[in-house]
């Protein structure tokens, strides 16, 4: 079976900021796992995220939907989300969909974390 998977890790940066690292492909099969992972962090009171997508090789609209949903939830608590990606295809998808205006996308985790301080 051509099963894809996604690995997810979280670490704390500067206290209340969670750096979520995603590694793999985010599609209709894996996006529910990402939604669940981020959702549980929000449930526990984390509302500020830097999401490292440097190792995301593929993302589709279901993955974008998870990011939009997460952003909406944290904004309700005064939180924010920044993204990290230098992948041209990933940036192209954000550009085409207009989400480049919704998410701030940085070249490095340090920049994405600094923007949240």
């Amino acid at each position, binding site marked *: 079976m051509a*099963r894809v998977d996604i690995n997810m890790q979280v670490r704390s940066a500067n206290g209340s900021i969670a750096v979520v690292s995603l590694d793999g492909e985010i599609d209709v099969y894996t996006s529910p796992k990402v939604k669940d992972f981020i959702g549980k962090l929000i449930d526990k009171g984390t509302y500020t995220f830097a999401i490292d997508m440097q190792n995301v090789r593929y993302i*589709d609209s279901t993955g974008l939907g998870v990011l939009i949903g997460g952003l909406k939830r944290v904004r309700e608590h005064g939180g924010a989300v920044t993204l990290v990606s230098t992948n041209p*295809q990933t940036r*192209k*998808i954000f550009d085409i969909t207009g989400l480049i205006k919704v998410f701030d996308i940085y070249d490095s985790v340090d920049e994405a974390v600094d923007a949240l301080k």
Partner: protein
Amino acid sequence: MMQAREVGAEIPEIEVRIPSRAEWVALARLTVATVAARMHFNVDEIADLKLAVAEACTNAIQHARESDEIVITCRIYDEGMQVTIRDFGVGTEAERIRSRDLGEPRVGGLGVYLIRALMDEVEYSVEADSGTVLTMFKRLGDSNR
């Protein structure tokens, strides 16, 4: 599962049938990417094709039963690749399949927008009792032919 045949001895055709379940969408997009690479589409064009096919399969899954299947057919022309995605679920009226308004960020509704943005030609047809057929075409760049 995968078939290749010559249509009228002129147009090579590759067909893949996948179960209508999320874990199989990767196979559909990788198959189309492999065909596209053999046609010498460039890396960006292959990424566009993969995403458009995945979005189409995702839409098909959403209005089909798990017991259904999705048929992905690639036809190879000198000018580019035609891909058809056929599902056998409850069809949505073709005129209601439209791109979303990007004014307000929200969950869902991006798939059709992406398909239309990434492919050169897109056409939906809905057959009342037999599902939806999405036909889309991606032209080879002049430097790739």
